[in-house]
């Protein structure tokens, strides 16, 4: 861990874009390598010396990050062709040149930064919350939950809205308007929570129209792409079944 590799550098090839409307272009940077360095640390190095391999001083690369320990979802980008968090992408595990691109399923803001507002809008659409009456202390504990159920819910609750599943899903594109696996997982989560259940019918309705669960093409890429290993395939299958039942029995409720 302490061996000195001072002279070694790593080559980065970064797809850049100055504004949402501008054409993308490529820049290359050589970054001094450090043991256990991640992609974020390399981008930070570029800020300190924003000179590309052509020797030209350029604007430092713009990207998004916050927690740097793969729990906030901010720094998702395409690293060597795969959507993942830049903070947990270790340089030593990556082939050179390390190629960085912005997620392609979202509008680019600048360089590696994208606008994922659509995911948050969709969370609103499916009412991803429990409808608590009040924040006041009701002097009551919530319902009891067996540890096994907690473990399942916790898995779904770890979704960081990073967008990797959207990137991997062939059905997410402008034409389909597919809401995507991440938001659907939240439907499943809140529909299984006792205080989320009152809104369960509305959540199912919200994913039954265009862009809803029916757009899922069962490619199963999402589960492989999820950095938190959410059981997305299972979630999508379950919701598919529930919405079918609802569609079939819909007239009973009218």
């Amino acid at each position, binding site marked *: 861990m302490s061996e000195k590799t001072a002279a070694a550098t790593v080559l980065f090839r970064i797809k850049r874009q100055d504004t949402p409307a501008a054409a993308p272009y490529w820049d290359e940077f050589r970054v001094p390598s450090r043991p256990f360095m991640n992609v974020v640390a390399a981008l930070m190095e570029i800020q300190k010396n924003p000179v590309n391999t052509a020797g030209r001083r350029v604007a430092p690369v713009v990207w998004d990050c916050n927690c740097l320990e793969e729990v*906030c979802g901010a720094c998702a980008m395409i690293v060597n062709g795969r959507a993942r968090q830049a903070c947990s992408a270790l340089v030593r595990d990556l082939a050179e040149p390390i190629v960085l691109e912005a997620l392609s399923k979202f509008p680019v803001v600048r360089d590696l930064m994208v606008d994922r507002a659509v995911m948050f809008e969709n969370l609103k659409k499916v*009412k991803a919350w429990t409808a608590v009456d009040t924040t006041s202390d009701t002097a009551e504990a919530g319902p009891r939950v067996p540890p096994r159920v*907690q473990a399942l819910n916790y898995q779904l609750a770890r979704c960081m809205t990073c967008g990797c599943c959207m990137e991997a899903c062939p059905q997410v594109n402008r034409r389909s308007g597919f809401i995507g696996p991440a938001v659907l997982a939240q439907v499943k989560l809140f529909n299984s929570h006792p205080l989320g259940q009152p809104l369960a019918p509305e959540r199912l309705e919200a994913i039954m129209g265009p862009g809803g669960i029916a757009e899922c093409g069962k490619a199963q890429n999402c589960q492989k792409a999820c950095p938190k290993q959410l059981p997305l395939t299972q979630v999508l299958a379950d919701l598919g079944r529930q919405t079918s039942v609802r569609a079939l029995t819909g007239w009973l409720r009218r």
Partner: protein
Amino acid sequence: MTRGPRLAVIGGGLAGSMAAVEAAQAGLTVDLFALGPAKRSHSAAAQGGINAALNTHDLGDSTGEHFDDTIYGGDFLANQTPVKNMCDAAPGIIHLFDRMGVPFNRTPEGVIDLRLLGGTKFPRVAFSGATTGQQLLYAADEQVRRHEAAGRVHRYEGWEFLSAAFDETGDGRFLGIVAQDLKTMEIRAFPCAAAVFGTGGPGLIFGQTTNSASNNGYASYALWRQGVKYGNPEFIQVHPTAIPGADKNRLISESVRGEGGRVWTWKDGQKWYFLEEWYPAYGNLVPRDIATRAIFKVCVDMGLGVDGEQCVYLDMTHMDPAEVARRLEGILDIYQLFTGQDPRRVPMRIFPAVHYSMGGLWVDYEQMTNIPGIFAAGELDYQYHGANRLGGNGMLSAIYGGMVAGRAAVRYLEGLSKVTAGGGGGAGGGGADQAGRAGSPTPVDGEGAGALAAAVRREQERDAAIARMDGTENAYLLRDELGALMNGNVTVVRYNDRLRTTLEKLGELKERYRHIGVTDSSGWSNQAVGYVRRLWGMLELSQAITLGALQRDESRGAHYKPEFPERDDANWLKTTIATYTPDGPKLSYEPVDLRFIRPRVRKYDVDKGASRNV
């Protein structure tokens, strides 16, 4: 419902989100500002859990014990009334978050499980896997989203607060805030008669820390510059167990020790469990300041770091792998990823890192600063942790403080609309001394609009001036130097001569700041200009932190001076108040609220009870 007065909430972490929920629930319209999506706030990074004396396991815990542990752990520097109120409210807060959907870990019977963290004898920490902060934050953010869908919250995510605006020609009242769209770079005023700030701690001042990239402290700095008092700046928590890294020092949560992890190093060919030897009563679960100093002593003074390096072992290889997987997995994965070693099989190598700021903006017991209408809660306030924070109390204070602030802001605004003239509406106890500014419910009449426009212009000029900087210094490298300076001299062990030198060096860094060359000239999503702006705030806040440390000739909690190794209640049982002046911070002191618990000697080699009886 959505008419009423508007409240600005700045910060979408636990404190800001809960303030927004409180205000929206009361029928106010809330404008919520954050550097990015609230869901990505730093609070998400909290791992270990949140304290509440739920006493699930019937081991004799109570809110009174929680209160006493917190005051004792904070070395008696925290005002006792708000701490007591927080501890009393804690069980209700856990139940609320349970109802909000947080998947807290459960006992076999299905009730909320608790674990141990440092500084107490009771399992008191509710947790949700190894990402409790993420789960609490998501639940708060979901409630915000619910109110957003109902039209009561408007999100300004990707907007940065720059400064507050006051009626400078009139009575000085607070008129609103000035913020910048980080995409378009547009700077705008948002009129409001009250604002709650939950913008988090200033950790980045210390270079590589356990904090997130957003913890730059600029909002605290901007308010301080505009007249808000800053309490106890010198109290900075250094967490004992982190893994050093190039981009940040990743925390290894205290919960590893809570679940049975042991700290040791080699001595005379034997494993030496120095915490257990030195502090038999609490062992590995001494509070953070104690553990950090012990590791420092072992590595720096005794030269007994593992392989001669600055680190010791945190060992959990003796623990049951199934339990470890269930309760600590996420934490261990982080270690494995960044070191390439499996902590289930090889002891972890850890070293202390800057983690948390106990000091922050001065607030009264209703979370209002000395400027009427400006509230603050969360890591940016100074209220709950005294000289040292206990694990699990950080998120509790952010949630509790945020809720108190939200409610108080509602009352304040109601008060304003009742009393059109006169000020200080909702000011609470705690000997608040107001800055003599009045408040008003209708801030944007003719004069007010002029003042807001002037405030926007000031920020535009500041922005333009930074964009023009074309010197040879690189802001990022300068920040590295600042971090090394502060980390090396103003953290675990403090010497007056080095603190004085640090103040001189800070002056030099401020001089060199003027020679920065801004590396990005774009008018779109320019991250470089904002960085330079924030760096100035870091430099000036560093002066307050360092001066506070220099003046305080005693040792208390996280503040330790070998030249003054004892706590000195006769002279220093008082809160430091830093006031901004253009010539540097001015310090004054105010008494601590001690109305419930009489100060006693703080030591962890014996039970707290033993100390209580002396």
